[in-house]
Structures are given as C-alpha cells and as structure tokens.
C-alpha cells in the first residue's frame, strides 16, 4: 500500500479563490486613491460618449474593466483541474451568457511629451440590461450570484444607480434583427392592426353595455363628422360645439386633416370605436401613432377620398418607421462605446480579461461561438491588439523579480508598481511614471474618487500598471512616434494577444491563432489528466468519501487501477483510471450489476457505490455534455436530471464485445449510444428516490418543530 496514487480532494474554499473576478482582498493594497472617475449613467450618456470619443481618438491605449453580477452559476461550474479545454470554454461561455454586466470601465491613456506624463480619463459606465424595445434586446432573465453581490456590496457598489439609471444596450445582432424586422412584415403588421385597412378586430358584441357604448360613439362620431361638413372651412370647429363635446373628443389637426384625439378610453372601448369607425364611416380612419414622448396616441382622422386615405396610410407608416428607427438607435445605448473601441483600433488593456472579453462579445456582438478557437478568432477580428496585464506580470522576468512573491492581484500590483499614484507617495525617482487624471470642470458633480472594484477605477489601475510595466521593460514613450505605436513595439509584442487563462491548466490562450499553449511561465499545479481514462459518476450516496470510492473500485480492478479521484460535488466525481480499458470495463460491470439482483451483485464490492439505486456513470464526453446544458442546478446530479437523462449507465459502442458477453443488446449505429433501462423500472426508481427525500423533509420539519418548541 505504499505507492498509492494520490487522491485529490477538492476543498471549496480553495477553489473559490481561483474564481477569476473575485480577486482576493490583499491587505498590502491601498483602497481607492483620490482619482476623479467620471460616472456615466443614462442621463449624461450622450455627452460622455462624445467626450470619450475624442479621448479615445488621440489615446495611445485604452484600459477596460467589467463588473458583473456573478462568475459561476453553480458550484460545479467553477474551473477545476479536471476540465479539458473544451469544458473550460463551456464554463466560460455559461458564465458570460447567464450573468449581467453592471459596470463597464473605460480609461484612455495619452502620453503628453511636453509634460512627460500620461493623461488618463477614467470613465465608469453603469449598465443594466433594461428592455427598451418590446421585441428585441437583452434577454429578460439574468442571474445573480449571492457571494458576488455581497462582494460588490462590501465595496459600496451602488445598485440603485445601476438599476435605475444604468444604460441599456443592444448587441449588433439584436440591432440587425430589429432593423430587419422594421423593413417588411413588422410594418405591414402594424399597418393592418392599427389602421382600418383590413380586418382589424373581430369581437362579438354581445353585452348590452357594449352595444350602448357603440351606439353612443356612433352618434358622437356622426355629430362630429357632420360638423366638419357644416362649416365652409373644414378646419373650422364651432366653438360652442367644441365646448359641448366632452373632454374625450378633442378636435385637433393631424397631417393637415381634422381629427379627434381618443383619450381616456380603455383598450376594450378603443376596439369598439375602431369597429364603429370601420363599419359606419367610409371617410373616417382610425390610426395609432407614436407621439413625442413615445406613447401611443389613437386618433380618428377625416379623409377626403380613397387616394387621400392611401396617402395618409403611407404618411403614418413612414412616421412609424422613422420613430422605430430612432428608438432602435437609442436602444443601442452603451454599445456605441464598444463600437467606438472597435473602430478606433487602439491597443486594449485588460487585467485577467478573458471573461471580460466573453461578456463583451456576448452582450455587444452576438451569441458566443461553440468553441474556444472560434471565439478567439471572433474576438481577434474585433480587437486586433489586446494585452492582458495579468499575463504580463506573470511572465516578464524583470517584473517578476520586482514583485517577488507578492500577489498578482491588480491592486497589489498597482500599489507596488505605481506607489506615486496609489498612495500619493512623493518621489523624485525617475523610474516611476507620472499619471494625470483629467476632468472637465463643467460637470464636476458626476465625478467621484475611485474605489477599488469599481470598473472605472480598476481600468485606470490596469492602465497604470501596464504603462509602468512597459517603462520597466525599457519602452520609451517620448522619443517620437515609432516606439509610441505600442501595438507594434518589439518589446511588448510577445505579450500582445496572449491571455491569462484564469484556470489552473498552465496554458495561455493565443487570440490570433485561437489556440491554447502550455506556457513555461506557469507552473502546472496538477499532473496532466488523461481524459480518455476518465469516467464520470454521479448520484451516489453523499456520505461516500474519495477514499471510499477509490477503495471499492480498487477492490475490483486492482490496487493500481485508480490513478485519482476528483469530487465535483458531494454526489458526483470523476475517476481517472490507470488504463483506458478500465473505463469501459467499469461501465459494463456497473450495467450488469444493476440488471442482476442476485446475491452476487448485492455482495459485490461496487454495491457500496450503487447504494440508493441512483448512481449513474458515463464517459468524460458526457461530463462535457452536461456542462453544456443551459440549466444551473446547485447539485451536479440535478443538472444531469434537468437534461432529461434517464439512463443509468452509458455503454459505448466500442465495448460491444463485453456487451455481448454480458448478454446485452448492442448499440445500433456504431456511435456512442446510451443504454436505456426499461422505463417502468426507471420511473419507480425515481419515485423511490424522491419518496425518501420527501420523508427527509418531513422528518426535518418535525425536528425543527421540536427545536422551536424548545426555543420558545
């Protein structure tokens, strides 16, 4: 028993620290400095956008940072050392799709040769996925992770500013859809339902109250209609007559035609009026238009002839289109900033920014591609030059030496590399760059001094760290244009488009090629995992410990058969065997044990694992498939259930031989096929499982009742 393969147990607290956005608070770092960060909400967005445009145009690089509502949607979605590259991307994708971005920090930096310092313009945008258009826009649901919210609250995040005043947005794809919708069917639909061209409504008038109302409206409309004819000038309305009309019948002009505004009716009454107009008045039209403050206005308009009718229709439609276009444009909202960053083509700086980029792509361009390669290429196309300061700090020898063993968190790097900015530490030393934050004094009210973990201030820190690191690497800013073109500077070239992976695989992502490489600067924390040798089991009793699992499998396959056991959560695990064939053997054995209920299977060493009758097993690809599922149950086993997995063991086609030996029917088309146990049995198993959980609930109810009795 001496050469035991090590058994890895996962400690929740440990992995949580690895979560990319939850940078741990380090005590050596100072809080916010006194840097004026411009706060942008929807009230000052348009002006701020113009100001930012000018700053970005003349900047040398732009730093960005995001704050979101969470990082992982379920505990098992945290990144593990047992995740293959595709699984890691699926987890990243899930995070970017489920959580919302609350703050977007943008900070352009410009080198000012005359002063020998950088000018920075930190902006902090509050954004919120409000639905500005009825049909298109950000999805209605998003997720909050309670620990992330608590974390933001610890740094005095202003949730009210975000939800009340946050800027909304449309992704490029959503905008495209909205505009496409405008062109054809949508407007025709509008025309049909809002003008009395075709069958507008079909409601049976059954109630006496409806009939009375319709009759009354008919008379009123007739009266008004006739009053137009009575007077020589069609626009002239008899004052007395107008006065006698009640407030619901205001005569106005609509596109040079006499009209009445329909105010104060319920939607049902409006339908009735529409019906009356259509039935009884050939030269009146019921139209619905949008007024200045974006609310619907219903009018009944007088039209001379049929041509006039068509003309009015066209006019109304044109108005509707213009209005809809205007609304779409304003709904694009914050995406204008992202468009600006893309079109300016400046060097983009982020700290640990892979997740940020996934959010940016998903929120402002379109749905995330299905593979890391496609994603990297898509991002590279939009932003050709990106530097991740986290990677820069980790892989540059000089900076490594300077930072020694210090934490590579943004704030500690900032206080170490830029002490003159972070703590107003006065120094004559030339080695520190100087940064000046510029404010436009006209609107000082929307500035506040930045605090840590506010996106705008984080972006500022990221930019400062980058500039200082460049200077340490010997980049000269003031010799003139050639070296100032940072994106093509030879000294930093090898750091461009290489992202810190934010997971423990020891690899980096190269955006330009879309591939992952092992990077010598990162120590692998774990031995490489052979995924083909790995099997997934879930739904086993929660009381089993990794050591128990290992023991009971080793009893069957031999002492050295299990290389490692990794617990995803308390009822699911990945087991790495020493040989690939063990995976299939294990699955086949489990399958046959479950079909035979004789004494042998009860006494079998594996029965400990199968206790409860809900233990499922499959290959590593199933782990990927379950991670790809869109639900986010807290327990991994529940997640598998939510995908509708009803089989208990997935036996692959490659195992046909063993299958036959066991007397099983074989896979049909040669591809991997799930082995289904009969439905009835399955159902009753499910039933019994939940029966017991239900009893547990009741049991605990009584337990707490007695507790309660004692407390009171």
């Amino acid at each position, binding site marked *: 028993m001496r050469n035991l393969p090590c058994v890895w147990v996962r400690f*929740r*607290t440990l992995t*949580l620290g690895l979560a990319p956005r939850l940078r741990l608070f380090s005590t050596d770092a100072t809080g916010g400095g006194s840097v004026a960060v411009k706060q942008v909400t929807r009230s000052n967005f348009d002006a701020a956008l113009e100001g930012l445009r000018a700053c970005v145009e003349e900047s040398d690089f732009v730093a960005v940072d995001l704050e979101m509502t*969470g990082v*992982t949607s*379920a*505990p098992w979605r945290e990144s593990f050392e047992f995740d293959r590259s595709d699984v890691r991307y699926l987890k990243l994708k899930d995070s970017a799709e489920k959580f919302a971005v609350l703050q977007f920090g943008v900070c352009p930096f410009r080198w000012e040769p005359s002063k020998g310092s950088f000018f920075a313009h930190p902006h902090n945008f509050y954004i*919120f*996925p409000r*639905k500005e258009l*009825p*049909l298109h826009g*950000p*999805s*209605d*649901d*998003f*997720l*909050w*992770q*309670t*620990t992330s*919210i*608590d974390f933001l*609250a610890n740094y005095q995040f*202003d*949730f009210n500013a975000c*939800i*009340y005043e946050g800027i909304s947005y449309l992704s490029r794809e959503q905008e495209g859809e909205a505009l496409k919708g405008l062109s054809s069917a949508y407007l025709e*639909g509008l025309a049909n339902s809002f003008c009395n061209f075709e069958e507008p409504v079909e409601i049976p008038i059954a109630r006496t109250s409806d009939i009375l109302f319709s009759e009354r409206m008919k008379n009123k409309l007739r009266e008004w209609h006739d009053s137009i004819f009575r007077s020589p000038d069609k626009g002239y309305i008899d004052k007395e007559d107008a006065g006698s009309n009640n407030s619901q019948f205001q005569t106005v002009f609509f596109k040079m035609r006499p009209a009445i505004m329909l105010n104060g009716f*319920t939607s*049902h*009454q409006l339908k009735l009026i529409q019906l009356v107009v259509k039935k009884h008045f050939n030269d009146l039209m019921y139209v619905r238009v949008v007024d200045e403050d974006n609310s619907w206005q219903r009018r009944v308009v007088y039209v001379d002839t049929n041509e006039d009718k068509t003309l009015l229709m066209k006019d109304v439609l044109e108005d509707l289109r213009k209005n809809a276009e205007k609304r779409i444009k304003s709904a694009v909202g914050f995406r204008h900033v992202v468009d600006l960053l893309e079109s300016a083509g400046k060097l983009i700086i982020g700290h640990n920014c892979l997740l940020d980029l996934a959010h940016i792509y998903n929120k402002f361009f379109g749905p995330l591609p299905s593979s890391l390669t496609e994603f990297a290429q898509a991002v590279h196309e939009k932003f050709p030059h990106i530097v991740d300061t986290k990677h820069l700090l980790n892989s540059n020898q000089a900076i490594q030496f300077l930072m020694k063993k210090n934490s590579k968190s943004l704030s500690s790097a900032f206080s170490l590399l830029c002490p003159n900015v972070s703590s107003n530490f006065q120094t004559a030393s030339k080695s520190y760059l100087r940064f000046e934050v510029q404010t436009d004094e006209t609107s000082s009210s929307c500035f506040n001094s930045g605090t840590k973990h506010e996106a705008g201030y984080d972006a500022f820190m990221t930019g400062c760290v980058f500039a200082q690191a460049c200077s340490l690497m010997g980049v000269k800013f003031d010799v003139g244009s050639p070296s100032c073109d940072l994106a093509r500077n030879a000294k930093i070239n090898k750091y461009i488009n290489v992202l810190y992976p934010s997971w423990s695989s020891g690899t980096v992502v190269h955006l330009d090629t879309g591939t992952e490489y092992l990077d010598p600067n990162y120590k692998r924390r774990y031995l490489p995992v052979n995924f083909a040798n790995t099997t997934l089991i879930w739904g086993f009793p929660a009381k089993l410990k990794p050591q128990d699992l290992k023991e009971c499998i080793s009893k069957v396959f031999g002492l050295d058969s299990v290389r490692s056991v990794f617990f995803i959560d308390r009822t699911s695990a990945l087991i790495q065997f020493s040989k690939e064939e063990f995976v299939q053997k294990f699955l086949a054995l489990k399958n046959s044990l479950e079909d035979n209920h004789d004494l042998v299977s009860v006494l079998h060493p594996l029965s400990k694992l199968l206790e409860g009758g809900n233990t499922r097993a499959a290959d590593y690809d199933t782990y990927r498939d379950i991670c790809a*599922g*869109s*639900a*986010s149950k*807290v327990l991994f086993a529940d997640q598998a*259930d*939510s*995908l*509708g997995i*009803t089989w208990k063991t997935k036996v692959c086609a490659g195992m046909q031989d063993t299958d036959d030996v066991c007397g099983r029917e074989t896979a049909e088309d040669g591809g991997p096929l799930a082995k*289904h*146990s009969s*439905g009835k049995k*399955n159902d009753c198993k499910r039933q019994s499982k*939940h029966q017991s*959980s*239900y009893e*547990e*609930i*009741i049991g*605990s*109810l009584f*337990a*707490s009742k007695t*507790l*309660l009795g004692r*407390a009171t």
Partner: protein
Amino acid sequence: MAASGGRQRLADAVKQVTNSNFADALKQLRAHVDQADFVAVSCRKTGDCASASSRHPWRRVLPIDTPEIAYLKAKFAAESYEILQFAVCPFSLKGSKVIAFPFNFNLFPRDRLNLGMPSYSFSCQTSFLTSMVHEGFDFNACIYDGISYSSRVQESMDKERNCSPHIQTPHSSSTTSVVDSIFKSRTKSRIELWLSASKNSNSKTDGDLLMSLRKFILGTELYGTRPSMRIDVCSDRQVQLVLQTVSRISDHIVPLLIPDKSGQPRAVHVVLTSSEEDKSILMSEIQNLEDEHNLKVRGFREVIDVISSSNKPIIGYNCLHDFTFIHSKFVGPLPLTFSEFMCSLRLVFTNILDINHLSKEIGALRKAKSLSSALSYLKRQFSVPIDIELPAEDEDCTTKAHGHNVLQITHLFAILRTLLKLFPNGIAKEQYIETIEDYLNILYPSHTRIQESDEEDLSFIMENGRAISTNDLIFLWGYGHLTAKELKHSLQEAHDVFKEDFELQFMDKSCAVILFYRAGSAQVLLELMASRMFYSDGLSKMKSEGLKAAGYQCYKKVCRLGLWDTNLSDSLENVMSDPANGISTFSEKDASEVRWTSEYAIDLSDL
C-alpha cells in the same frame, strides 16, 4: 374608508424591517400575531412564472395546465427566483373595524458561510426590477441591509454539520480494542496531569515564557475565564473515548467538541469548572451561544416560524405562487407532486385561505386579474364601510414605504367577509376557523399578470374560457415558420381529421397546441402521425418535412422532468425520443378538465 388615494398614507403605516431593527420587530410581531385573528402575507419576488418570459413563454401558467402542471411551473419559478420583500400583517376584526399591524421585511439571501446557503445564485427578470423601480424600491437597502435566512431543512443540515463547539453526550461504551485502551489511558494521564497542574498554578508565578511553553506542549488554554485543555482527535470513535475518559475522572470537567469546517471532529476542549453551580453556569453559557447561533442561521425564518406556530388562519393572494416560494425558501426543497406539496405545506401552515378562491363566491371577481382591480371593483359595486385601524406612523422612518399589498389583502378579506357574511354576529373568535373551513387550504392556480393596473374594468373582461378535456389537445411542431392562420389553413388542407372545426394556439415560437372539438379526433391524429405508412395526402408530406405531434401526456412528462430550458418542441422531442415511454400514441385514461380561452393566448409578436 381606505380610499385608493389613501394608499400612500396606508403604506406609510407599514413598518419597514431590515437587519438593523429585525430583533425588535420580531418581538413586536410575535406579540401582534398572538393577539390577531388572522395573518395576511404577501411577497415580492425577483421574477415569476406568471410573467412574460420572452424566451420560453410556455413556462407561464396557462389555462390548459392542470393544477399539477401549474404546480410544477410554480415550483420551477420558486426554485429560480428569490423573495426580496415579505410583508406580514396580523389583524383582528372588531365589528366593521379592522385592527392591523403591517410589517414589511426586506430580505437578501446572504451566503455568509460560503456554503451556497440559502442560495448560491438566483435569477432576476429585468421587467420585475423595472417595475420595482417605478415603485421607488431601494435596492441598496435591500442588498446591504436585507435579512438573510435559512430554510428548516438547511438548518437541520447545518445542525448536522455543526461547525460550532458543542456538548455531546457519550454513547454507552462498546467493545474496546487495544488501540482504544492505549488512547484512553494516554488521554487519562494527560488530563490528570493537566488537572494537577492547573490546581497548583494558582500561585500565578509562572512567567510568560513558561505559560506559552505549557500552552504549546500541553495544549492548555483558557475557555473564557476557566482553564481548559485541548485534546486533538481524528475520528468520532476517539471523541467517544475522550468523553468516556472525562466522565470517569471528574464531574467538574465539561468536554466541548470542536469540529472543523466540514463538521468532522477536530478536537475536544476539556473545561474545568470550580463547582456544580459553576458547571451549570457554563452549560447555560454554551446553550446561549448555541441559541444565538441558531437565531443567526434562521434569520428571517423566525417570522415564518412565528406564523406557523401561531396556527392562525393565513390569508394570501395567489397562494400557489407565494407558497411554493415560501416552501422552497423557508421550509425545504419542493416535493415532486402537488399533493405531496400540499401535505408538506399543511404540516407548516394548518390553515391557508387563498383569497382568489374566496373571491370566486362573487361572480364578477372571478375575472379579476389583480388584487387592486378586485378591490376597486368591490369598492365601486358595494359600499361596505371598512375602517382599518393602523398603528401610529413611525416618525423616524424615512425610507419609502412598501408592502401595501398586504394591506390590500387585508382590506379585500374584510369586505368579502362582510359580503359573504362569513362570521355572523356573536360568533366567538375560536369558531372563525370552523366557519371558513370550506375555503381553507385550496390553492387556486391562477394566471395573473404582473403589471397591476387600476384602470382595468372588470365588466369588459371575457368569460374565463370553457371547460375542455386534455384528451382533445395535441401539440404540434416542426411546421416551419408559419403564422397561426397559415398553419391552420395548411392543416385543413392536409387531412380529413382537420375538416372538423378545431382551434389552434401557439405555445412558443416552435410549437402550437390544437384543440379538437370532436372527441376522438386527437387520437386519430396521433395514430396517423405514429404510423409509418405513407399516403399521398398533405399530412404525410408535412410529416416528411418534419411535422411532429404529441399528446397531453408528453407535455405532462416534459413538465414533470423539468425540461424547462429549451423550446417546448425540443423538450417534447426529448421525451418522445426516449423509448422508455411509449406514451405518445395513447391518450390518457385519466384525462383532466382544463380551460381553453383565447385571452391568454401567447402573442407571438410579443416574442
């Protein structure tokens, strides 16, 4: 009369409770609940299945849903969304007067221990947050100062893990091995050595160095002011051995079990007390600590426990939705079926009165889609003088008031009580429950809207659909991009079974539901769709182009398995493709009656 203009005044009287004043409010509430005849409750959530989820509109509770399916949909919502506010209003009736004490608790599920409790993450609907913005909701107050909670099941799990020091009683001893007796005798000698050392060290002449050395070597520490020693253990077995040993040495030693974060025993602290009284003081100190810890763990759930243990009738609106939330947040995970849910719920709340159900007694109210429209209708139609007496306003309460819903429920109940003559004069309080027994514990699945509008006029709302059998419903998908009209038309062309009249509605972008007027047509269609014969009719052509059909049972199965995260067509496909259930072609024997109405039809132009 509490006129609608008085809503602000009414709402001002609602006591707003956050973390900072929770302890006081709980005390007050307990007293008021004790005095009250009834308790009205209502909660404010971050989302609901009733509202328009634009991606998956079929998740809404629809009129064609059986109560079972309505429950499953409510369950899904309760598991995804959070409660942000919980309003409670204990009230009593005195003639036409209502004496009410409304409270509004701000909640936030704080994961203090990083355990994913009470919730790891939760969903939010932007439309809900936006409508909260219109009411001036203070999100900062809610997140910074909201009260956390844990459910009963979570609490008992926490108990099991038991991370705080506690006292454990020793089991009667079992057989001891040699290893055990060695461990015991070593522990015994350590404790005796420590006992004699601590008796002798009264002189207090030891230097600091000696003290820290002793602490290091012997593991002696102070527990409060009492001397104690730490004995490291690594299993429950060893804990038992230590406990046995201690009990044999002295009565004045109290062993305290110190677990690590995962609840495994890590060490036993043996604390020395000077006398019997001192020991009981220590024991009560430990008990107090435990109670304090429990209170912190339960948090807001204390309020639920107060209501639950009072056994007062609970009045709610839209109870199916509210109580699935309450059960999943404060009691435990929701059971898989409606009947089990009701069973479990009754263990906690014996008498629930759904005001939707009570309102059915008044014909017109059946159609009311919101609390305020029901209330304003009653106020207009009947003049029932109701005088709501509220506690004096809180002077220092500056936050914007919320939770007036619970007052509306109270008000509505008071009116209904008078109209329906629920409690005849002279009836004793104790008989209240008896008289309303027929209405109790019937949760009425309703299809409410989130946006409440006061202007809604009940007299214009259509009847609530007609009763139909679930056997006559067929779900269709794979027809491409057709409008309802086009689809209906092409179906009529396709086969004789569609020659009879039928109705069609969309469930979402991908799937439509058909109602056949003639019994048996649905069965014919399903058999046609299942047969592999190819005819030259239009239906076979549509089949070859991908048209699929499923009966109501498949829909039920989709809901039971909880395949909510896709289009309905994908979920149905998933269920159908599972050979384990050959149900697609057979109609159910236990068909249920549901309702069909065009009013709740999903408008695809909304999507």
